[in-house]
């Protein structure tokens, strides 16, 4: 008979010299999807593993070892953003230039091009490597801070107040950045993925 209060099974910890083989690629892909730069992603993974080594006595096996490492990596990525944006002024983060979004509309605020109906299953799209290459290219066309804000918000679901603190900007500035990011990415995907697939 099962004991109602049986202790939770603990996840085993592997030896640190196995971490690179066991988790290296996983951590790297996680970091690369956020930082969009191979060198930065590699550095983040390296720092994560070294920090984990120092803190490995604190790992008590309640989550898997990989989840624990991802938790450390998330902090490293946020630290990277904090350092990166500490010295940058708000005007550089939120450029006045709105051409990319303005070009979608005429002077009366009507769209210059009518959007199509996307017939896509989000789950299928998100597992399509080719689609991701296109989206990554679209993200690269955004100002870096805008792409980072979008990634923090939509990928990691970070609260807007927290993103404002990380970037050192006001809520109003962040709303503008995210609004532009969504519209630009929507337009870019429409032109470079959905219309080409429909053709």
């Amino acid at each position, binding site marked *: 008979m099962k004991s109602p209060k049986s202790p939770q099974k603990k996840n085993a910890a592997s030896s640190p*010299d196995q971490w690179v083989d066991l988790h290296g*690629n996983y951590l790297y892909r996680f970091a690369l999807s956020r930082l969009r730069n191979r060198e930065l992603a590699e550095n983040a993974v390296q720092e994560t593993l070294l920090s984990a080594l120092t803190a490995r006595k604190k790992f008590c096996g309640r989550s898997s070892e990989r989840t624990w490492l991802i938790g450390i990596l998330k902090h490293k990525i946020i630290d990277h953003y904090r350092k990166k944006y500490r010295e940058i002024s708000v005007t550089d983060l939120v450029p006045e230039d709105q051409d990319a979004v303005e070009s979608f509309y005429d002077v009366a605020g009507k769209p210059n091009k009518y959007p199509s109906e996307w017939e896509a299953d989000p789950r299928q799209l*998100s597992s399509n*490597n080719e689609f991701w290459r296109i989206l990554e290219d679209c993200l690269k066309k955004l100002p870096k801070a805008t792409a980072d804000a979008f990634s923090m918000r939509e990928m990691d679901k970070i609260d807007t107040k927290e993103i404002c603190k990380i970037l050192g900007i006001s809520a109003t500035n962040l709303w503008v950045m995210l609004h532009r990011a969504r519209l630009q990415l929507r337009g870019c995907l429409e032109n470079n993925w959905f219309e080409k697939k429909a053709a």
Partner: protein
Amino acid sequence: MKQKNIISCKVAAKLMCQSFDRKLTAREQMQLKAHLAICKTCVYCYKQVRTLRKVYSQYAQIITQLTPPAECCLSQPSKQKMKALLLEAI
């Protein structure tokens, strides 16, 4: 008075995007709702932005399950370097 509640597609797009990050005022909600009721273009745009958000958040969950292209893996020299650093620090 009624005229003030009519918004352009450009303003509607801004409000629909910002509704994901902040609570719109009662007036903004009314303006957006009224606009979407008569503008198919903005309804499509709204659906597209929602799809974009869904795809992006699902990607975060499945990225590590995908068969990665070679450029999304650590290179052998990087792996060796990390292993050496770990061994040195143990």
